[in-house]
């Protein structure tokens, strides 16, 4: 029995393709590739929060916005871009701790609405305050660079994005395989039971909330350097819903599922966008198609594939591998059934 697990079997080629892609894609494809990586980064956090800590956040776009505004304001103020990029997740996480302390006493639909309200308040404030540039937002944000080196091409941003995603995935992996990770799974099932076995429920929930906010903040920081401007209009409520869709589609509580979900939704939307801008289609076609796709994918997956795409597929693959191994021994049969 020396077959490598499915993860390694698929993971290595995927990593190789990921590294090779920026070199071959043209600029418009690279833009999709970068936005996909950023969305995946936020989605990993959402998946961790929903799948492990059992908390729904409809306001993840707010942390994305905080990261973007932080990095933009700092670098417009003359601070070196790397400092801005580091500050983006830190500020987002600190903000999450501050508002999470009262908000995380809520759960279920109350928390969902509270986080949605938080995003609406922040967007409204960003559109009114002077230092955030009002509705016009902040423009002419300098390029990202270290010292005298300045990043110009989109390919460099692609490497930065996917490097960031790799870091986020590594952190998440370490969190969920650690002792706190098991504690998180326990508190998602029942907070009372978790608390009675000595898990500091409040502190762990807050930590995961802050961690997912930091991921979104990092993605926002990269986003602002890549696009060169931020405005309240870049972070609509729909963007938070989009992360939920991606996390649910990929499978909650799986790291790779978040990436698979983000990829599937981004590519699907991109394909539809190409279809919708074909001459002869009505002008409203792109927005209608994207709304319809978000909605239908979300409803169908929640109702019929509640585990998500990736666990459903890998589950089926594992079942097939088990079946091919069945004739070997009685004993293995038993252990396979047990492990499932």
């Amino acid at each position: 029995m020396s077959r490598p697990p499915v993860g390694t079997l698929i993971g290595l080629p995927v990593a190789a393709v990921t590294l090779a892609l920026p070199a071959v894609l043209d600029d418009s494809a690279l833009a999709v590739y970068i936005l996909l990586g950023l969305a995946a980064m936020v989605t990993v956090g959402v998946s961790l929060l929903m799948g492990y800590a059992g908390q729904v956040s409809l306001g993840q776009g707010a942390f994305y916005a905080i990261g973007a505004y932080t990095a933009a304001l700092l670098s417009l103020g003359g601070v070196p871009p790397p400092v801005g990029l580091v500050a983006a997740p830190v500020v987002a996480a600190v903000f999450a701790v501050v508002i999470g302390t009262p908000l995380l006493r809520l759960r279920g639909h109350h928390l969902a609405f509270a986080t949605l309200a938080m995003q609406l308040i922040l967007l409204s404030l960003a559109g009114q305050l002077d230092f955030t540039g009002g509705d016009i937002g902040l423009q002419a944000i300098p390029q990202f660079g270290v010292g005298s080196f300045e990043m110009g091409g989109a390919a460099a941003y692609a490497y930065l994005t996917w490097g960031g995603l790799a870091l986020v995935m590594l952190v998440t992996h370490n969190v969920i395989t650690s002792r706190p990770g098991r504690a998180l799974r326990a508190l998602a099932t029942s907070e009372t039971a978790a608390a009675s076995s000595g898990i500091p429920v409040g502190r762990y929930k807050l930590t995961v909330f802050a961690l997912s906010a930091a991921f979104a903040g990092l993605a926002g920081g990269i986003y602002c350097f890549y696009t060169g401007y931020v405005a309240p209009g870049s972070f609509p409520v729909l963007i938070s819903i989009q992360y939920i869709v991606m996390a649910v589609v990929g499978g909650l509580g799986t790291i790779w599922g978040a990436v698979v979900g983000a990829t599937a939704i981004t590519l699907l939307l991109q394909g539809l966008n190409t279809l919708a801008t074909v001459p002869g289609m009505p002008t409203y076609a792109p927005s209608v198609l994207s709304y319809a796709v978000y909605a239908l994918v979300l409803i169908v997956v929640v109702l019929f594939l509640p585990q998500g795409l990736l666990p459903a597929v890998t589950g089926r693959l594992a079942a097939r591998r088990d079946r091919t191994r069945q004739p070997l021994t009685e004993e293995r049969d038993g252990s396979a059934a047990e492990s499932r």
Partner: protein
Amino acid sequence: MSAFLGYLLNGLAVGCAIALIASGLVAVHRVTGVVNFAQGTFAVVAGLCVSSLLGLGLPHGLSEVAAVLVAALAGLLTGLAAIGRPGTTPLSSLIVTLGVGVLAYAVEIVLWGDQPRSAPGLAGSVTVAGARIQTQHLLVIAVTAVTFVLLALFFGRTYLGKALTACASNPYAARVVGLDVRRLGLLAFALGGLLGGIAGVLVTPLRPISFDTDVTLIVNGFAAAVFGGLTRPVVALAGALLLGVAETMAAGYGYGAHQLEVALGLMLVVMIVRAGRRSTIHQEAV
């Protein structure tokens, strides 16, 4: 003083519209345990329908009733998606209704475009103690009052209403005595659609409605509903009136830009205070 009275009555009218949305939320949540995120959508659908029907030349009255019935149908369809499949948890149902709301965006843009639309309501205004009030505002208050009285009679005096109340208080016992909990849940969704539709029809002449107005409506409605813990319609009504008056006063006395923050901040404070008073065990057991 007359300005104050004007703001008060306008605020009450705004609050009444919020109260209708909130009562729809409460009706659905009591019976099914689901928070219906598409509740604001029903109002938008009814508002857009009434603008189209009046545009086609249908008389007042008929158009409004037809629009409300369309909203009730939308409620029923939402219910089928949200609780039609056995074993859907309330949180999954919330996400499904979120999906329904986004799906409605697509349908609404195809049918009505993405520009705000309005509809003619009751024209003219009356003067009450020196304050000029639009007649439509008074109509909103009157219709809401009648609706709440009818709701109270429905839940308190009819067999169907009592069956709904039974499901709300103990679904298991309701099943034991032979009530079809799922069908009653669908009925609650249709009722929610009906109430949302009434709100939409009343509000459209006051402020133009576009496909994405539902976020404001649902957030306000939810804010009012949490006053009553999502289960008590009368407290939700009081919360909605308070919210409507607070928002209108804020706008009237020069803080119009912060109307949304006032409503949302109030909602957050109420939720957090209430959450602090209830124990975790109780919330998990329910």
